[in-house]
């Protein structure tokens, strides 16, 4: 059965994308098609997870070519778990996007393009998770990157082109490093099959191993946004449409993390670069979260927390123990769900408040209590407040760090706690400003319109006050005050500073479409459910990590025997 099921997470979305292109003239049909396809992918992934957990790792040779020659798809506990989480959030984001498209029309996000591209993206992610050889992993990366280029520059507005160019150039560089690394690996070992590499790479001289390992880690580190290779992310993510940013934040960096896990466990288990990864993890956590604290825009803040929390996963990987890897795997699953949800909530905030600038938002909790709950629960989860899943994941990682016991590990444990506290600070600031304060407290200090309003106020009394200090001056400053107030309220509620006040007010008061709220609520419920299911999930992560450290389940599944040719 698994021979039939394993290729489906790649095949179904690709065929679905072709179908969605064919029916691009019929939006309703297209929506139904892509939703059905993603639901099917989710169902297949769940079955694969149960099979992989019950029977251990299995592999499928695509096209019937003998093992070291053909393309191999490997389903083990880690890849099946990643598939399930990825297809779940992809389905949630798709429903959200459908709701947004139905409410907005197709000016900013042309949905006829969105659906096929999104399905191709899911196919690329699935291919990367299932790939059993390095070159197929590269192809998976390229499929998802190609789709992500299109999604990120959807609509082609100036801001998206600017952010998209940064993203494209950085991704191209990382792909080229990856491709060159594959070439060198092939030259050194004569194979690109990962199970075969697991044996042959170990026979190479140590210097060659470190060179190949560091090239692969640089390529994946750029994709996973590990400091110092993370600067591109907060620059390019926030400009895209909300569903696109959400799926990027949830999935794309985690594909990089998944590739790092494979490199560090299967290909180079010696732990030669573990100390370097430790320090990179610490720097990622701290630099990322300090960046998040400095931000005033909700989406940019979330992008920085995304970078910061990648540090936790790299920490778990760098520990190299089964406990550390289990923590990292659990954290990846938790973080995919939580970060996607928060970016979707940011999309809802933008609709409700007309902006994502925390300075210009206010009073959201009173205007939309449901939205406030939808933000509050995942935000606390991200910060790691007990008993939510973020807390469980962090405790698991910190325990693994303490158990490892080296000085570096303890430094990282301390860094992890500080990062968690600073995350709480960052989300609490958004909460108090955007949700808790009353709307007319929002100062909007840095907007041009508010500055103009204040300048008018300060200038007027000087001129009129010099002429006389009676009725005229009072009347003058009073008109000025009215003007300034009007502009000020306009700024506080308007979507763009240059919109006329009336349009801003109308836009801000639009009700939230039920589909968008429903999709977000479902994902919030999922993140809460991750807390309830944390026991079984952590057990699964534990078993996956044991397989990873052991390595034989993977190679045995590919070659059928313990002996590797």
């Amino acid at each position: 059965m698994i021979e039939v099921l394993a290729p489906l997470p790649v095949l179904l979305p690709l065929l679905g994308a072709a179908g969605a292109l064919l029916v691009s003239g019929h939006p309703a049909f297209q929506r139904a098609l892509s939703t059905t396809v993603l639901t099917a992918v989710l169902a297949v992934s769940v079955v694969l997870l149960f099979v992989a957990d019950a029977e251990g790792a299995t592999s499928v040779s695509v096209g019937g070519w003998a093992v070291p020659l053909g393309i191999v798809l490997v389903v083990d506990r880690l890849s099946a778990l990643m598939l399930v989480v990825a297809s779940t959030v992809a389905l949630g984001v798709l429903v959200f996007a459908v709701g947004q498209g139905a409410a907005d029309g197709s000016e900013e996000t042309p949905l006829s393009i969105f659906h096929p591209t999104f399905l191709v993206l899911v196919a690329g992610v699935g291919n990367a998770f299932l790939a059993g050889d390095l070159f197929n992993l590269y192809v998976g990366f390229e499929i998802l990157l190609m789709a992500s280029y299109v999604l990120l520059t959807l609509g082609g507005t100036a801001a998206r082109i600017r952010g998209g160019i940064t993203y494209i150039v950085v991704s191209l560089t990382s792909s080229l490093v990856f491709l060159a690394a594959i070439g060198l690996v092939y030259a050194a070992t004569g194979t690109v099959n990962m199970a075969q590499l697991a044996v042959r790479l170990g026979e190479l001289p140590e210097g060659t191993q470190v060179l190949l390992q560091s090239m692969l880690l640089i390529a994946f580190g750029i994709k996973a946004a590990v400091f110092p290779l993370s600067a591109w992310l907060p620059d390019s993510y926030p400009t895209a449409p909300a569903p696109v940013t959400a799926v990027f934040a949830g999935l794309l960096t985690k594909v990089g993390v998944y590739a790092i896990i494979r490199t560090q466990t299967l290909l180079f288990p010696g732990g030669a670069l573990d100390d370097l990864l430790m320090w990179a993890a610490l720097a990622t956590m701290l630099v990322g979260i300090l960046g998040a604290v400095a931000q005033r825009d909700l989406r940019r803040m979330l992008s920085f927390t995304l970078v910061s929390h990648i540090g936790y996963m790299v920490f778990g990987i760098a520990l190299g123990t089964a406990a550390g890897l289990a923590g990292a795997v659990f954290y990846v699953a938790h973080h995919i769900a939580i970060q996607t949800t928060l970016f979707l909530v940011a999309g809802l905030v933008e609709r409700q408040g007309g902006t994502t600038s925390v300075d210009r938002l206010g009073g959201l909790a009173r205007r939309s209590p449901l939205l406030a709950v939808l933000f509050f629960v995942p935000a606390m989860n991200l910060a790691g407040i007990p008993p939510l899943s973020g807390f469980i994941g962090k405790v698991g990682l910190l325990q693994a760090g303490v158990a490892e016991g080296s000085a570096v590990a303890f430094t990282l444990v301390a860094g992890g706690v500080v990062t968690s506290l600073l995350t709480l600070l960052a989300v609490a600031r958004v909460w108090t400003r955007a949700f808790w304060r009353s709307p007319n407290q929002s100062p909007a200090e840095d907007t041009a319109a508010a500055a103009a309003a204040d300048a008018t106020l300060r200038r007027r009394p000087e001129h009129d006050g010099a002429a006389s200090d009676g009725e005229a001056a009072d009347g003058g400053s009073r008109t000025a005050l009215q003007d300034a107030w009007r502009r000020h309220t306009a700024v506080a509620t308007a979507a763009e500073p240059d919109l006329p006040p009336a349009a801003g007010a109308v836009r801000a008061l639009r009700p939230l479409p039920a589909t968008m709220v429903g999709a977000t609520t479902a994902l919030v419920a999922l993140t809460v459910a991750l807390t309830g299911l944390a026991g079984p999930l952590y057990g699964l992560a534990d078993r996956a990590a044991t397989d990873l450290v052991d390595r034989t389940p993977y190679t045995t599944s590919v070659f059928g025997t313990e002996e590797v040719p």
Partner: protein
Amino acid sequence: MTPTVVLPVMIGGLYAAGVYLLLDRSLTRVLLGFVLLGNATNLLLLSTGGPAGLAPILGYSDPEQFNDPLPQALILTAIVITFGVSAFVLAIIHRSWRLARNEAVGTDEEDRRVAARKATDADELDPDDLAPEDRAAMHADSRAGVLEELADDVDLPAGSGTR
């Protein structure tokens, strides 16, 4: 067969030129740099196949003298990907030119704004601790009286244009 020195020299030269162009702000040069880097990587892949041999077709040439076909298959895939990405980047450059008459890599304005900000946020200060003349112009406490007065003839805070 002795290894050739031509390929490594060419690969190195292409990488150097490609990185130099990639670091430019002009997008056309970035694209050209990417194309050079792609070609350099393809040459690198080609050279991993070992010394040159005969076409790897059974019955056409002697299997002992075959060239390794796998790197060539990898290169074909890589060429297709590079081609697709180059076309997309060209479209982006065109779009950028149409939008802004400019095809340079832009600056992240929000980033600059955050970097240029003063150490203290205005809304982290407690306005009540400040002297009245230092308070923000629209501070609710200092203007409360005035606003109540205004409330008779202006719709506050909606202020949708009725005067």
